């Protein structure tokens, strides 16, 4: 049997490895990145020169930075709205009873479990200008080539749609799980009161799953704002920086243009910006209330 003092220390003991790991693997690199953002540094092995907030001042004057911020907004907002809307519709359909439902539930999760690199390469092949299947269908349909990545708007649309295709299953799965927790009596009572399908959705489903919905939007928001891999693999931020958002700008500055301080400054701003948005979101939709 443990004594009172030992019992008090037990949680600390259990938490210590995780806390240490977080400190070493998360906190220290973050602090190091923040520190780097105050230096001018052209390679990881060079001697850094202190520039204070110079990198930040420089960034705020750059049209490229504001363009990346705007692109990040467009990308994350569009993907979140579409993912949540489609995810809810899919979840509602999968919540109905029909033959083959279990199979369909399994199939809808496939895009989410595929590695991002596989998804990106597959879509690149499908949209390849000469040999891509979708490009050939489009050519047969409209009699002209479609430049999927030739204009900024089109490239952004492709990136958004591929992202939605890939991550909507997360929303539908989480939402479906939440739907399963709604007692059948609630639907029954609403039906007896004469509520139609839309009213049942608006006044029974949404209030019941609100906490889950808030968490889904929060998580998707954080993930999509920081999403690097799919955008990079599909467009590298192009054409002409039309799909370049803050994570890509940070990467390009750091690893392509040898401006490590600038890249770290972008990452720091991105982090602070996201922290601000998340705080605002949680203030507007408090978890306790949810």
């Amino acid at each position, binding site marked *: 049997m443990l004594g009172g003092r030992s019992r008090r220390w037990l949680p600390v003991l259990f938490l210590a490895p995780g806390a240490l790991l977080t400190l070493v693997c998360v906190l220290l690199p973050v602090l190091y990145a923040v520190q780097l953002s105050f230096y001018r540094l*052209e390679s990881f092995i060079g001697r850094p020169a202190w520039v204070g907030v110079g990198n930040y001042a420089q960034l705020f004057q750059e049209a490229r930075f504001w363009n990346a911020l705007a692109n990040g907004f467009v990308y994350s907002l569009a993907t979140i709205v579409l993912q949540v809307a489609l995810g809810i519709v899919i979840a509602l359909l999968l919540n109905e009873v029909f033959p083959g439902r279990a199979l369909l539930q399994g199939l809808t999760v496939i895009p989410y479990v595929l590695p991002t690199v596989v998804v990106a390469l597959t879509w690149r092949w499908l949209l*390849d200008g*000469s040999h891509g299947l979708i490009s050939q269908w489009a050519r047969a349909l409209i009699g002209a*080539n479609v430049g999927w*990545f*030739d204009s900024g708007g089109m490239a952004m649309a492709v990136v958004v749609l591929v992202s939605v295709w890939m991550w909507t299953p997360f929303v539908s799965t989480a939402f479906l799980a939440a739907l399963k927790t709604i007692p059948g009596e609630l639907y029954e009572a609403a039906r007896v009161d004469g509520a139609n399908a839309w009213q049942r959705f608006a006044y029974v489903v949404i209030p019941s799953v609100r906490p889950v919905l808030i968490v889904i939007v929060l998580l998707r928001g954080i993930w999509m704002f920081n999403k690097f891999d799919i955008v990079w693999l599909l*467009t590298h931020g*192009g054409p002409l920086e039309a799909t370049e958002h803050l994570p890509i700008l940070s990467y390009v500055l750091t690893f392509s*243009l*040898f401006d490590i301080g600038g890249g770290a400054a972008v990452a720091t701003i991105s982090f602070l910006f996201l922290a601000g948005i998340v705080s605002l979101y949680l203030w507007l939709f408090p978890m306790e209330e949810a």
Partner: protein
Amino acid sequence: MNRRKFLHGGAAASLATVFIPKSVKAQPKLTLRMMNMETDPNTIEMLKKASTDYEAKTGIRFEIDTTQPAGAFTKLATSIKAGRPYDVANILFIGDVLILARDGGLMPLTPLIDKIGRDDFGPRILFPMDGQIWWYPYDYNFANLFYRKDLFAQQGLKEPRSYDEFLKATQACVDDPKKTGTPDRYGICLPIGSGPAANWLTFAFLWADGFKLFDDQWRVLIDSPPMKAKLVRYLTFFGELYKTMPPGMAQIGFAENLTLFASDKVAMAAYSGRMIHHLERFAPQLTDKFGMMAYPSSDGSRTGVNHGYDGWVVPKGPYSQEGYKFLEWFLTERLIDFYETLILHYQPTRWSIYDNPRWKAHPLVKKYAWSVDIMKGFLRNTVIGSIDTEGPAPDTRPGKVFEGFVFPEMVQNFVLKKLPADRCVELAAEKARKLTT
């Protein structure tokens, strides 16, 4: 498997370990690391074999860590920063090599190069900085043009020598029998996306045309009257050429470029000798139907090719001397084996290699002797250039223009955004200045 079987298996494995002969269990006296960014399977196998042979000879094992070329610099720099660098590495971008050298991350290889003899190396390949040579370049990796000789013959075309002739040739090769606007075969493919493929394959016309990126004081020349005229001429020419290209040029990379030529989708494409290996493997019906040429200048007076070079470096660290010794051994004993793994792609940087009996005896070198002559000819009578080696001396500044994709964006502004040519040039100049000052 039940618990008893599991325990029996474990005991048997332990006993086997105890009784394994000593020779099998022998450990190298030192294990070092090589970073390799040549991803061809034959090359990787060859490097492993070389490592095994070196271990048998010296007791020092080199573990091969193969990485994608695009991530090589970051990986190497990170290993140096972490205090335990790779002991020998190959890398593809001279700007990266010079950055590592400038920051004290590399051993100078000057004694090694001097022992071989600088005269043995071809032009524009050693890139000395601060009086030292920092790499052993093993591959020129020139980007040149491939064209379909059979189609040229059908159209009565000769090898084009100027922008005008080149444009006429590509236009003549477009095969659109039903006049649908979506041809069965296009004229040429040249990547224009912001990536290494465009930087490597699309701008050698400019070197042929005498374009200079910087003056002697490292001032950006892009919008100076003579260079601006060259660029406007190039963009106008490229705009017409673009009409003969298949869709998706903003997106294609190295692999798609090879595929488009091998699949008969285009009559012309740019690449290094790897194209021949690709045709041998995937389109043998085209191996006797292609020709090779350098990029023409606007007036037909000169030709140019684009650098793609690769080289070995020895990072500075506790085992630099061992890395250096290994590299010396490798270059003396195994260099031809290395070349043989992709013999027409790795274009030798030393004159003596072209005369090496083993190298010359390789079946592909014999079969494509005419193309080897053309590739070797690039060293004597062709302007060799690349964005990242522009300027009065080897330096990191052109590397920023290269990595900032200033030139691909100039072309994108012209063909995708339809901005006027002179405005595209001004934007390119603006960006180049911002990146280099």
